[in-house]
């Protein structure tokens, strides 16, 4: 087989370094746009929380803080395994890389599973917004607003997780056919960037949805 570096180089680049740097910059710029997308939602959430502080505290009180905290710990662990995966990719430990990527996916799936259980619980307690929402009390409409944001924001986050899982699956298959090596591991580091970003977003989601109810 010929030189892997030569295989990697696409024809419109001058050098491999230029190509790698380009991929890296591309992901960072993409994360900027992602940040603004979540940012819009965070702004709207903040405005309404200022308008309806009690209702948002009330909504937050019906969150399962236990599940939320466990899920946060789980997701942060997946960032750790992803970090190790990047490290092993740099060191050329292909077998270890495959295992760590697989573990990251499994932890990600565990997160999504717990998230789904929470969604089902909210649905059963008539907290899912729209026709399913049923609650009385002076703050009911604004509590529904809390849940609207909860479902949109964690839902958008979950979509990003699912995309991330598919990206990692792609890495695993590339690793299995041997196109990743110590000399070429750019895809691992840019998917890693994405995965860590999605994790960081969760930390803020955890804070704004699970914690306000604690003051009640």
């Amino acid at each position, binding site marked *: 087989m010929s030189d892997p570096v030569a295989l990697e180089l696409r*024809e419109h680049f001058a050098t491999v370094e230029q190509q790698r740097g380009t991929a890296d*910059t591309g992901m960072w710029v993409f994360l*900027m746009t992602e940040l603004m997308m979540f940012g819009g*939602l965070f702004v709207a959430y903040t405005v*309404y929380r200022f*308008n309806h502080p009690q209702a948002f505290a009330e909504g937050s009180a019906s969150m399962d803080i236990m599940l939320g905290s466990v899920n946060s710990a789980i997701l942060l662990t997946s960032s750790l395994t992803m970090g190790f995966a990047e490290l092993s990719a740099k060191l050329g430990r292909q077998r270890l890389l495959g295992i760590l990527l697989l573990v990251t996916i499994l932890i990600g799936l565990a997160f999504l599973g717990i998230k789904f259980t929470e969604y089902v619980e909210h649905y059963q307690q008539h907290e899912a*917004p*729209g026709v399913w929402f049923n609650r009385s009390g002076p703050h009911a409409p604004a509590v529904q*607003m809390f849940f*609207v944001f909860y479902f949109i924001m964690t839902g958008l986050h979950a979509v990003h997780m699912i995309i991330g899982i598919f990206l990692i699956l792609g890495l695993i298959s590339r690793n299995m056919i041997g196109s990743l090596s110590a000399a070429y591991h750019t895809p691992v580091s840019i998917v890693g960037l994405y995965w860590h970003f999605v994790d960081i977003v969760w930390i803020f989601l955890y804070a704004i949805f699970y914690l306000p109810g604690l003051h009640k």
Partner: protein
Amino acid sequence: MIEAVAEKLEKNYLNEKQGLLSWLLSTDHKRIGILYTFSITCFFFLGGFFALLMRLELLSPRNWLVSAGTYNKLFTMHGIIMVWFFLIPSIPGTLGNFLIPMMVGAKDVAFPKLNLLSWYIFMLGGTVTVYALIRGGVDTGWTFYTPFSTSYSTTYVVAAAVGVFIAGFSTILTALNFVVTIHRMRAPGLTWFKLPVFIWSMYANSLVLILNTPVLAITLVMIAVERIAKVGIFDPALGGDPVLFQHMFWFYSHPAVYTMVLPGMAVISEIIPVFSRKPLFGYKAVAFSSVAIAVLGFLVWGHHMFVAGESVYSALTFSFFSYCVAVPSAIKVFNWTATMHKGSISWDTPMLYAIGFIGLFTIGGMTGLFLAALGLDVHVHDTYFVIAHFHYIMVGGTVMAFLGGVHYWWPKISGKMYPEGLARLSALIVFLGFNLTFFPQFVLGFLGMPRRYAAYPEEFQMLHVLSTAGATILGVGYVLPLCYLLWSWNHGRDAGPNPWRAPGLEWKSTSPPPTHNFEVTPVVTSKLPYDFEAMKEELELV
């Protein structure tokens, strides 16, 4: 003779591969630029058709052509198509795609496949929007203001919002591609301050699009969720705040206005030096003024809400920043005119459009200051004054720049020259038609004619008739270039690599360029951009 034949046989990006699939699957930035040109031209004439219907309706003070409801749909679809499917992708999608890699001396954009994907996403968004249109259209205005759009309108709001949402991703991906290309793909020796100002403006423009488009996307998601699930995100009856929608919408849309005109400024900054035979005056000032417009553009959105319930202090702040935008804009205008000063000016078609741009943009910009003034805005808010103001920027500015740019780079894109006399004539027709269409609207607005009405008091008829007459002239001015440019594609005379004797890197290649733009990757040795002295020596050597 033999040489001429050999030149004809030379492989370039147009003849290297043939057939429809070679276009639809091409990752060549130049071909993708042409795909965009095709799409946005279709959308432009579709949006123009709606405008024409509106102008015809407004010939008479009473509804004579369409009902008030249909009129609402006409101005909405005109706005949606023109803003998202023509203005925003116009110059970046076509000239930007074609020129940015060439101007930085690269073989292609950073991510060629992503570039092709953005065109497909754009077409998908366009298809969904056209679907909404065929099913019966939308009547909310292009701004989708709540609570009308979420709770009351019975038209295809969700479909239109989904169309715009999808198109937004195409905008983001194109912008991302440009930013990375400009950062990473520059030819050896091409440092930031040797870049053409076109690149600087497109860079600033792309950054704005990367930062503001996702906010629009998420706002449209909220609108769709509210309509479908009947939950009150912006509905005051359910604890929501309709003004929050306006804030989020204009946080996107005011910077978006600058993303419509920054590419126009990019084009003008290239044309003026070449047809004045002088380096661009105040290069750094012009370059940084693009960045300044991009930054300030994010701080002015509240000036759309002076009468919508905004605190005095935020209104004052937004008004102040809106005035500030005039500074970098004026820097550009003064530097363009200073470039022309004592230059050796030639009156070729691109230059006619560029000069038209300077005048019309100045009028559009100055009347923008009227609207930024807290007191005056109350009087002219939501009147034809506003319509006239932003059409001076978008049609008088961006469309003029687009046409100027297309003429200027046409020899590079097609390898052919267009008929110069006819082109000058149509530039003149566009200028006259444009002013006749929109100048009366300033007067109308100042006299109190509100926007978005199909009927009006009889005393306004004269001005409306003038405006409609102008619109028909303007229409002729737009159809003419379409005809003669298409004609010249096959029948024009060969342009040669550099018919304008222009200094930019894109002119160092053949016309049309080979698939990878340059035979050898260029190395930039000149000390400045727009180096006409070096040009002169080069030409003398030849």
